[in-house]
């Protein structure tokens, strides 16, 4: 998984993410699984993401998005 941009990393460390930053984080984790944002969200909701720890983490991150 690539390094996250500094602003996103700092927002995570502070525990204060904007909706845009949450989407950016989801997109980074999706990329690590070879998926784009929309596909990752669709598969997270269908519980069909890869079963590894990144997929597990991503599934719970998608639950943080506004419905």
């Amino acid at each position, binding site marked *: 998984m690539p390094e996250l941009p500094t602003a996103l990393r700092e927002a995570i460390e502070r525990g204060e993410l*904007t909706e845009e930053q949450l989407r950016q984080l989801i997109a*980074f*984790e999706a990329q690590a699984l070879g998926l784009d944002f929309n596909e990752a969200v669709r598969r997270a909701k269908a519980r069909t993401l890869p079963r*590894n720890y990144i997929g597990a983490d991503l599934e719970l991150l998608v639950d*943080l998005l506004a419905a």
Partner: protein
Amino acid sequence: MPITAPTLHAAAEQFREHLNRVLALTVTRTRLVLIPSPTLPRVQLAFRQGGRPVEAKLHTRFGVIGLHLAQTCEAESVHGRRRQQQRLRTVAYRYTLSPDGAADPLLRWEYDKQLAPQCRHHLQGTVELTIGRHAVRLNDLHLPTGFTTIEEVLRFCIVDLAVAPLSREWDEVLTESYEKFKGDCAPRGRR
């Protein structure tokens, strides 16, 4: 003692600090990091470094095994002595144990409050089973478990996988934390 605070974020921060202390005294110094939802009353706790999800690498009697922990928590309003408080509740968890180099976790403990019709608390994994004349994998089933706490997974790592504990007090630390929080985050009979 319930995990309550004036805000969800403050309650989750208490929980995170407590769990990180438990982890550091038992199996790993890898830390849980809090990600709050920008719009929903919900937070995620997971092992992260540099913002990215990571596994804690544990040296077990079967070689190196990666442990990943993640939980989603919400809050319910309760009346405090002086004002409204937020009580933390776990609504989802994912705990995985993956031998080094394995594509899929050997064991996955999962819970989803909304999951249906499968067992909401279940265990899956790449373990092969024989049922009659049929060969199946645990990944094909949702083996019921009841609420699995992080403390129980850490205990499994030390007792069954022979991970060297990081302190002499590991047993007391896990017992005390289990007793303190199990009833608060997942009271029996509550959905």
